[in-house]
């Protein structure tokens, strides 16, 4: 019986994936529907009250953000997440709509090998700061941003991209501080520094 039941559950999951989840009749649902009407290439859903999210292919992210800017006045943050196993960076543009009081996470995925995205500085000038940070910590190239370069870190740390998951923090610290740091053993993995 158990063996028979399990595939049924899987089938159900597949079915729900094929049919797009219906957007609720709330202000968030209407907002997502309105934006998806203008940008059919994106996927969108409502996560909970005052939280929505979109998935956009990286080639059209700029186009999408230009559309979204009409409803979402503020670019709160650009977060980069390094998914090492998938070999991808997830870049999340976090928008806030002052008029509707809704937070939107616009997600896009770019390859880790050659991470490139167009800048959104001309849509939101504050993106300059976020992009400089993303470039310094992760090495994402934001094409069109003139100020990419050493920003928060020291110049010697530039282009090491310390927030990537494969950055060897212990090795780097040991290399810089040498003798002062010799009590750490790289072969041990359970250190919490």
């Amino acid at each position: 019986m158990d063996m028979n039941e399990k595939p049924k559950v899987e089938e159900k999951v597949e079915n729900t994936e094929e049919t797009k989840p219906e957007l609720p009749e709330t202000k968030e649902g209407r907002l997502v529907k309105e934006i998806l009407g203008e940008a059919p290439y994106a996927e969108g859903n409502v996560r909970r009250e005052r939280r929505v999210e979109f998935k956009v292919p990286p080639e059209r992210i700029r186009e999408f953000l230009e559309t979204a800017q009409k409803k979402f006045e503020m670019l709160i943050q650009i977060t980069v997440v390094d998914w090492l196993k998938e070999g991808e960076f997830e870049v999340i543009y976090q928008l806030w709509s002052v008029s509707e009081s809704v937070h939107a996470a616009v997600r896009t995925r770019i390859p880790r090998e050659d991470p490139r995205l167009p800048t959104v500085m001309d849509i939101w000038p504050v993106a300059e700061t976020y992009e400089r940070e993303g470039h310094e910590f992760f090495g994402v190239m934001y094409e069109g941003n003139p100020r990419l370069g050493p920003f928060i870190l020291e110049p010697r740390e530039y282009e090491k991209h310390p927030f990537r998951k494969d950055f060897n923090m212990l090795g780097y610290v040991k290399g810089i501080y040498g003798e002062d740091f010799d009590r750490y053993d790289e072969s041990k993995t359970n250190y919490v520094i």
Partner: protein
Amino acid sequence: MADLEVPKELREEAKGHDMYLHPIDKNTYELFFGPQHMATENFSVILKMDGNRIEKAIVNPGFLHRGFEKLAEGRPYFTNIALLLRICVPESDVPENIYSMAVDEIVGWEVPDRAQWIRTTVLEMARMSAWMFWILGFGNEIGLYTAGQWAAAYRERFMRLFEELTGGRVYHIYTVPGGVRRDIPGDKWLRQLRDTVEYLKGKLKDFDEILFDNYITIERTEGVGVMDKKFALRHAVTGPNLRAVGVPYDVRKDDPYYFYPELDFEVPVLKEGDSLARVLVRRYEMEQDLYILEQLLDMGPPSGPYMVQDPRLKALPRFKPPKGDAYAHVESTKGDFGAYVVSDGTHKPYRVHVRGPSQSHGVTVLEELLKGARLADVPVILKTLDNCPPDIDR
């Protein structure tokens, strides 16, 4: 100033130290403002000066970078509280709360009412003590030292209350995912808090006379560092700085959390957008915060547990939330403070990204506002924007 010639020896010494004291062209020279200047706090601005006027300003952060976000990826969930709260020094409860809120959302915990009440009270107390800290800084920058000394003394009252509640004065390590670490010490503490609130309510009038209604403040701030509504929104300016240009955006109203939907308070808004408007918005908010604290005390802490009841909490170091991500934000005195936490199902967060409000108003906005300002206006603009360098560096 235009005819100033830097002596040759000094110029060569400066070159040796990789500094550019020498004039760039005939009338322009570079000035390093901070990090040794009191107004900038651990932060520096490189100013290109034409006489007394600033032609260009380049923000130079990084003196406080300690890699908190990276370190947080290597620690268990609950240990991170003791680390992330150091991002915002004057109100350390804000990073604790945003991180805890995000983890609560990932796990799906409903924080008990009593814990929510305590968290709201702690956040409001943190706001009040941060306002006092701001008066200390701002009063000192414009030369009204008495107001600053008073404010430092009043902040001490909150520090003592915090010490009794949490054990720490500046860094409290108090709010944890699922609730708070300890219960309220007793009714005596609540009475002391009410006394402090009453006391400060009376003292706000004194601050009006010595600082907010003082002609020195008005002369120094009126018409300095003006921004308009469109500029502020495009630059993601939040908090009192945004309310000073006429946008009534407050996270406590627009994305309510904890007990704020049940509380009655106003969001003060001014339209001018200059430094004076930013100062006055802060003055009105102090009043509102004291009013909120009063209401919370009238309401009284609800009965019940102060921590969520979950068997997983018994094995804390190996506590594993499910996969997922969440964004949570609160209203701090600096603006909209947010945290984005990603969990991959292990006992450490996969990524923690903190959005400090100074990241937007401390870099691009500051550079724009400083253009054309006088050298003496730099501390005024810095302090009325309430720039907090650890937000930028993290």
